[in-house]
């Protein structure tokens, strides 16, 4: 599996090298990025590095969705509400201008200070949040805008009201809607890609992940509680299921790793946003000109091929 990912990267790298001979500009950064991804795969991530990712993915100074929105887009108009019941502040949706082009946007927002954290429910969406997302996905599809989603959530909110409002069904339908879209879609995990709450917004043509983000079926703490019956074994759990970006790339779960500034995105928000914008732009370029039916077919084929079985 690791070899496959490595080969894919090597192929892209050699293609790009040839292009450079044709005198295209702006490729050296891309070359550097691919080389770095190769290095990441080649060097098996150690247990300490995995745990470092877990810590950095949850770092308090890490840029959140709105930090990127303000740096990524020339203009942004926020859209509120699921048109049925409520406006969930854990999910931010809107229309942005990226290089002069309209892009539909959905992102999960944690809070920076105590007050905002409570307001954003720590980035844990209610079904209303996923319904708001669905509404904006459908808008994008109707009007032909590419869709960008940023994933950063410990998970969908586990509460009595959330269940009564249909949390499971909302997450299922959010994925189903993404599987139907006839426009280019790019998702990026920018912090915690927590379980069902994350995959609800990540069934995209290109799935990216920042270098120190994590993507997992359960939090290390949750896994430790269930399998080891001891929350203190979180490190052990993380080492066992490896939620780090290199591992996700190895398994084909994501398509590329977005580099972070040295030390992590929390050290330089502007540079982090610049690097993210670069990867997002490149992903949309790769998808440009592919007809909607073909996008949909390839997207479904990609996800239907995921898994390891005999």
């Amino acid at each position: 599996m690791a070899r496959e990912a490595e080969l894919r990267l090597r192929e892209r790298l050699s293609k790009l090298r040839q292009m450079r001979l044709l005198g295209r500009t702006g490729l050296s950064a891309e070359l550097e990025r691919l080389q770095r991804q190769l290095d990441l795969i080649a060097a098996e991530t150690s247990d300490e590095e995995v745990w470092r990712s877990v810590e950095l993915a949850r770092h308090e100074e890490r840029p959140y969705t709105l930090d990127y929105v303000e740096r990524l887009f020339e203009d942004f108009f926020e859209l509120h509400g699921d048109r049925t019941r409520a406006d969930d502040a854990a999910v931010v949706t809107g229309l942005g201008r990226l290089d002069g082009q309209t892009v539909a946007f959905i992102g999960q927002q944690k809070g920076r200070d105590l007050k905002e954290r409570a307001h954003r429910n720590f980035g844990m969406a209610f079904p209303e949040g996923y319904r708001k997302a669905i509404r904006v996905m459908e808008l994008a599809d109707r009007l032909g805008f590419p869709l960008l989603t940023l994933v950063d959530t410990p998970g969908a909110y586990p509460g009595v009201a959330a269940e009564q409002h249909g949390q499971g069904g909302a997450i299922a339908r959010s994925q189903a809607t993404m599987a139907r879209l006839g426009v280019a879609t790019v998702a990026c995990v920018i912090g915690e890609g927590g379980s069902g709450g994350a995959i609800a917004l990540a069934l995209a043509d290109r799935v990216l992940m920042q270098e120190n983000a994590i993507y997992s079926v359960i939090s290390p703490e949750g896994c430790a509680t269930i399998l080891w019956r001891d929350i203190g074994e979180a490190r052990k759990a993380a080492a066992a299921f490896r939620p780090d970006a290199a591992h996700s790339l190895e398994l084909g779960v994501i398509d590329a790793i977005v580099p972070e500034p040295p030390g992590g995105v929390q050290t330089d928000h502007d540079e982090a946003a610049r690097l993210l914008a670069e990867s997002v732009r490149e992903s949309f370029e790769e998808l440009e000109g592919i007809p909607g039916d073909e996008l949909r077919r390839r997207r479904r084929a990609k996800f239907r091929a995921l898994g390891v079985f005999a």
Partner: protein
Amino acid sequence: MSIEDKRPSEPPGGKRHPNTCPSCSSHYRDDELEVAYRVCPQCSFHFPMGARARVAHLADPGSFSEEAAGVRSEDPLGFFDLRPYTERLVEAEQSTGLGEAMLIGAAAIGGHACQLAVMDFAFMGGSMGSAVGEKFSRACDSAIDRGVPLVSIAASGGARMQEGILSLMQMPKTVCAVEDLHDARIAFISVLANPTTGGLLASFASLGDVLLAEPGALMSFAGPRVVQQTTREKLPDDFGRAEPNLRFGHIDAIVPRPELPATLARLLGFLSDGA
């Protein structure tokens, strides 16, 4: 007037016998439960039902032909918690006689041809790993190829943690398979048995054209324990059960197990009438 229930909720010193009703404490012999479709004759509690017993109960005699029987889980992470994942798999296979937590195949119910995908909770809590995802995905393709409706019976605690992120990816995988089914205009009836939680409820199990549940089936995204611990909310007694879910509009009907074959046959009759 108040009638106090003094029975202990958990019998002291160990687990309850599998044939003792957790709801009314009546105890049955295997054959007594068998003839009652594993529904308590006293209080109608629905005991867990294995996948093979399900198929025997639902499918017309001799109509079931199993598919993808050889699909087995692998151990992509070399996962080892208190015991190796491979050891758990072998044990589950020995105790259930199944290769995985899902059984798929062609069948007929009340004379209506259909595709069946039936889960077994006894196989590692019915958890969905790569093999279950693949089997469900193939069941969708079979239904499309043969032009017959798909009926799934879910019974699962959610994703199989031992397969890490790949188990999470079985959610979008099965969702994409259902979308292909929808595009082919093939009907899909999803039945939720106790329990259908986590990644199962948040993927294909919620995407049926018609959603049915067995009485009392727990169908919540987050389990009651997780909700209690995270929110410290007082949970309603029927938290996440089929009955409130019907009230809140999340399912179409609650069908007692003895009526399930006839109900499915009726529905298949309606659904196979489309152009």
